[in-house]
């Protein structure tokens, strides 16, 4: 799941796909992804993993890194 999310985020949201990001990179607070991108990410997660993550969970506190995303996805 981590690798899949990493690939999606790198391909879809990064200005420069060669930017180095990993599972611990702070994506929201680091300014890599914004609310518009998070809407696409929410839809992607629902489509790929069958989990609908409520918006209040998609925040810089709980959804900032890919590791945190995986944890949240597993909670739902």
């Amino acid at each position, binding site marked *: 799941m981590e690798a899949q999310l990493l690939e999606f985020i790198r391909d879809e949201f990064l200005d420069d796909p060669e930017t180095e990001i990993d599972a611990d990179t702070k994506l929201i607070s680091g300014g890599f992804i914004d609310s*518009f991108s998070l809407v696409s990410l929410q839809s992607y997660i629902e489509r790929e993993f069958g989990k609908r993550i409520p918006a*209040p969970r998609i925040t810089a506190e709980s959804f900032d890194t890919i590791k945190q995303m995986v944890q949240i996805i597993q909670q739902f």
Partner: protein
Amino acid sequence: MISFEFFAILGLSLVLYWLLPAQRARNLLLSAASLLFIWLLDHQSLVVVLALTLFSYGMGQAIYRLKRNSWVHVLGVIGILASLIFFKYLGFLAGLFDSLYIFLEALPRFSLHHLLLPLGLSYIAFKQISYLSDIKWKLVKPGSFADFLLYNSLFTIFLAGPIERFERLNPQFQSPRIPFKKADLELGSRRIVIGLFKKLVFADWLGFFISGIWNNPSQYHPGLALLAVFGYAFQIYLDFAGYSDIAIGASRLFGLRVMENFDRPYLATNISQFWRRWHISLSDFIRDYIFFPLSRLSSNKVWLLGFVPVIAMGLCGLWHGADSRYLIWGIWHGLGLSVYQIFQQLKRRLGKRKMLKFNAFFAAIAWPLTFMFVSLGWLSFRAFGLPMARHIFFSFEGLTLTLISFLLLIFLGRWLPAFLLDIGARIRWRPAFTLYLLLICLICYSALNTEFIYAAF
């Protein structure tokens, strides 16, 4: 908020609160103090708060217990919105009907102009919508009625937020015993004094100096009018951030942590960032309960980039009041977000093709452009904005000075934001500062005393 009632209730309840041994008893005391505060402000508001609390708690219980609960959720949100529309927007709608009746000259007229907006209603309505939605999404449990009543009525944040979530406050209410910490008292009182200072010393005096220009711009030079526009940007920020400091500080005195509402918004380098730093509790609400659900309706790019931000921010504008100036202000920001997002998408595409060679240019104009955009938005937000805009932008002098100020901001932008951040980081607070600031606040309090701008919403 800066009233004898507020500080008397704050002082008395604070002493009793820390004398009580159990958190349950403390919560009951806080609820009683909060209800007394609301009753002293406005009897009607107390009735509305109690009625809405009962309604939403019942709905929350039903959502939690029923398997097929979508209709209860919808019904609950409609009920809350209906109360908001009734008190906040019916006067406006009745005005429209009145005009229609005058035009027809047939039907008997009725007037609801004098229907008073219960204090804090806009904030409670949003808190309750988030409560019902979070139960629906299984993010929270309904909690006890006593805790929910305290969540809705907590007097430190009652008048103008922050629009705190039940999910964050309820665990604090349910703690067996919030420990007494001297640091909480120190930090809380410091925040209150800083808030008073922002409001009484900066915002009110700034408002005093610029209000003459705003009320009659044509009597002044366009340059002064432009300064008054920037002045209002700082007045409304200092006024509301001052209020938020008092609310957060007063909550902290009881050991309660309330979310921050501002994070140096005028240092934002794009409009999206501005909204992550300005009235954070409202923009979080708009994002979670309006922007995301609207975005899910269609994956069409035109809908997502063109319509959703404008609708969401238009509603955000209308939340401030039933007035076209708020709607225009919201749409202005919605369009800003929309254009910024389209620009981001283009940048991404160009970046992939290694064609983007304008980064240095964009970096230079990012901060001044954002600041100017937000400042111009306040033109619509504040009454009499149109004459002011006409006076500045329909004259050669005004336009020239706007351009010069933009160039000046580009120059200042090279070092000013970093300098301000550095100064902020270097300040080492001493207890004596709190006393000095309080003294200045007391002097200013007798000179000027105006209501908080956001308490009217």
